[in-house]
């Protein structure tokens, strides 16, 4: 079966690759571009750890047919830092111990970024809602919620 040419924007940079028919975006990013920040979790859309932004909208890369992103803009955790500095969300996750094993962290950060990009000062309930598609088995979610609120300058619980 012939390969399909695919071009899209990846963290602000144009990329051109060849994919097999039916390849999902997660495989394309990890195996063909070498961006290992989106993680493979369940492959069913249930855990959120493969979350990326497509044209600024949160999507699950494992459930996205790679061909459908032709000409679109993909953002992953790999493109989140701002030059040599961490993004405020990344800094807040570090400061608030919001990562333990770290497997969910890339997806959590993308879900948080999707929220803050459209709502700079979300409520606690809005933060909970924003990460409701992302499973974390370590932190109990509280440090993550607090980190996201801290990144907005909002008050967090002790």
């Amino acid at each position, binding site marked *: *079966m012939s390969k*399909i040419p695919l071009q899209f924007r990846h963290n602000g940079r144009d990329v051109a690759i060849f994919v*097999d*028919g*039916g*390849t*999902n975006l997660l495989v394309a990013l990890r195996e063909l571009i070498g961006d290992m920040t989106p993680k493979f979790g369940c*492959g*069913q*859309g249930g855990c*959120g750890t493969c*979350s990326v932004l497509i044209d600024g*909208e*949160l*999507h*699950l890369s*494992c*459930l*996205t*047919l790679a*061909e*459908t992103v032709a000409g679109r803009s993909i953002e992953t955790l790999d493109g989140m830092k701002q030059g040599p500095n961490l993004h405020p969300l990344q800094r807040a996750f570090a400061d608030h111990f919001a990562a333990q094993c770290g497997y969910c962290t890339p997806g959590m950060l993308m*879900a948080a970024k*999707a*929220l803050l990009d459209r709502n700079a000062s979300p409520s606690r309930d809005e933060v*909970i*809602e*924003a*990460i*409701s*598609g*992302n499973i974390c088995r370590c932190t109990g979610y509280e440090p993550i919620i607090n980190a996201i609120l801290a990144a907005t300058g909002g008050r967090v619980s002790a």
Partner: protein
Amino acid sequence: MAVTVKTFASASEAAGALSSDRTARYLGGGTLVMRALNEGDVSISTVVRAQDQALTRIDASAPRITLGAGVTFARVLAERDLAFLHAPARSIGGPAVRNMGTVGGNLFAPNPYGDFTVALLALDATVAVQGGFGSRDIPIEEFLQARERQAGTLVLSVSCTRPASSEAFRYRKIARIKPKGGSVMTLAAHLPISGGRIAGARIALGSMAPTQIRARAAERALEGRSLDAATIAAAASAAIEGTSPSDNALGSAWYRREVVGVHLRRLLSGQE
């Protein structure tokens, strides 16, 4: 295994490709088909897509609303005129799933999913499909009963009449994990009132049978009556009739049968 992806400009071309190839599946938002491919479903060798803008059209201004099959739950939530469908749309997945999952795809979602379809069933929706035979409208109940045989047809849109008031349409999803999670059961009720009495009651249940079903005995208990405590009790005790739930990780069939009446009573009583 690699599959062949066929992308068409029009829905009718995509419908033609679907109806002529038994191994073809239509890709909408991807939450069902890509999941199947990730799990190694070898029955799919062709994926069909359509870039027809008609599939993503929303007509929400008239009393009868129409949603293109490719309309996502996030778009339903963004539409003020569709407020009566916000609770069902919000009850599905997390934000990423709602950005991807579509109204048309939800018609095919197996238990414990397919919550939006429960709402559409209570609203007596009509499903517009296109197959090798041309296009036609099918009542949603008939569509669901023949769901397994709909693989060769393309859903174009769903339409339903807007409830007369927010009180007339009620929705409740019972899930163990909040705010997202698969359905233990899902209930929707449409209770049009005429002269103080219920006229045309519709109760729909999800995860209580192989597909979403109407609770006809409960509907009969409500029909022509006012929504008082005795009527609600009669409907609640009849809720179990005609159900055939199965066991899964979220709940046993026994548990579902035990609590369906409790949840219907709460829904009809307006309890949280």
